[in-house]
């Protein structure tokens, strides 16, 4: 089977078959990262540009490592060191990069839809590494891969997603993905952080965190974006954490074998208490990071012509 897509712009565009193809391919790539020589020659001679207009450690490093483990040449451009500071527009930057003939451009941008705009203008493959509050498909794929590994399957699970849903591209991509794969999703967060009419995505919405977590197989905590406090979306961190911090007490409401996920970076003591984040029986936060490299290898491989 081959991925009949030029770009990966969001989970919304992917079919269940395509998600399964990506996850199965990623499974095969996991082992490469455990070798002494962590490199295969598959994408030798291919060029991958990581074009990051927003800060990132995990995602950018993960894409860079993924490209390098497949022997692609990876080039990182961050907005602060690019001609963006000289006033070049996104489209001009992209056209110039296109002229250098890369094979894949991985882009992160604060504007929702920026990757789709580029994809429509240039002939190379575009991977969305996060656009505004819209989508973060590789994160949702690595989350689904982690869930699948820990729980055997995604269909039939109850997944609770807690926190600032409105500003979270991770939440949006995961809602698309998890509901497509047959899981039921329960959200909880302050009313100011809950998008209007989000129920239309086929999920349940709760005001109290405890209701969403109750009987869940997976609890996914979102990072509280500290920069949002200036916008008066929540009164204080202390008050937020009193209601929406995952701790020993409220995790007991979830299933006994429930796993705890977080896309990182975590604010210890704000949305998740340190003992839960570090609990080896529950927390799969570092598993998620580990799977991230394999998922991104799979995306690069499938977009550059590989199949399964």
């Amino acid at each position, binding site marked *: 089977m*081959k991925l009949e897509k030029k770009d990966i712009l969001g989970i919304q565009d992917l079919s269940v078959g395509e998600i399964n193809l990506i996850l199965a*391919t990623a*499974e*095969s*790539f*996991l*082992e*490469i990262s455990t*070798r*002494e*020589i962590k*490199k*295969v*020659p*598959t*994408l030798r001679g291919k060029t991958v540009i990581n074009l990051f207009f927003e800060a990132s450690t995990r995602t950018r490093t993960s894409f860079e490592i993924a490209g390098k483990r*497949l022997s692609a040449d990876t080039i990182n451009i961050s907005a602060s060191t690019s001609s963006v500071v000289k006033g070049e527009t996104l489209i001009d930057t992209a056209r110039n990069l296109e002229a250098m003939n890369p094979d894949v451009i991985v882009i992160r941008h604060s504007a929702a839809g920026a990757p789709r705009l580029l994809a429509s203008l240039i002939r190379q493959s575009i991977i969305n590494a996060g656009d505004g509050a819209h989508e973060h498909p590789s994160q949702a794929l690595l989350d689904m891969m982690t869930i699948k590994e820990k729980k055997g399957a995604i269909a039939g699970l109850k997944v609770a997603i807690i926190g600032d849903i409105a500003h979270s591209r991770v939440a949006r991509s995961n809602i698309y993905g998890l509901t497509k794969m047959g899981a039921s999703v329960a959200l909880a967060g302050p009313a100011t952080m809950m998008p209007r009419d989000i129920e239309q995505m086929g999920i349940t919405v709760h005001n109290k965190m405890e209701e969403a977590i109750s009987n869940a197989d997976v609890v996914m905590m979102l990072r509280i974006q500290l920069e949002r406090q200036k916008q008066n979306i929540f009164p204080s961190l202390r008050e937020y954490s009193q209601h929406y911090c995952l701790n020993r007490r409220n995790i007991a409401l979830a299933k006994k074998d429930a796993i705890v996920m977080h896309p990182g970076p975590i604010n210890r003591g704000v949305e998740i208490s340190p003992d839960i984040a570090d609990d080896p029986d529950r927390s799969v936060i570092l598993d998620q990071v580990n799977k991230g490299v394999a998922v991104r290898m799979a995306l690069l*491989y499938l977009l*550059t*012509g*590989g*199949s*399964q």
Partner: protein
Amino acid sequence: MGEKKSFKTVMDRDGIDRCLTRIAYEILEKNKGMDDLVLVGIRTGGVFLAERLKKKISGIEGGDISLGILDVTLYRDDISTSYKKQHPGKTDITFSLDGKKVVLVDDVLFTGRTIRAAMDALIDFGRPKMIQLAVLIDRGHRELPIRADFVGKNLPSSLWEAVTVNLVEKNGIDEVIIVEDAK
């Protein structure tokens, strides 16, 4: 598809079994026993043959011999050109290859490109003392300077024929067939 393809059986269950028995003895003879010897099967057909060889060698010498599984998809030279591609499966070699005598096992030796890819992959895993090649069928038409150390059967074939090794483990039957006019 849909057209009638004629095929003929060139080896049956007993034939395959006898070939593997002979190859097992030849491997032991050439390597003077099984010290430092490991088997690596190439996905997918080679893996089942390697498992059978492992059983036979252990049966002859006693003791256990390590078996690894190698997927060469990521080492192929036709990733972005070929339309007929394989599933990139998992590689599973849990032991060190340093200083080992590695016997690569595959079902059909044809152009030699799979073996080239397999040798590149093995060398990424360590520095074997020696790499040998065992195949059930050698059908000729090499495109690279590669030959097998242990051959079940030489089967000169035309490029218009396909040689297929079916094994109980994946196809439910042990047989080697030639399908004519396969294009």
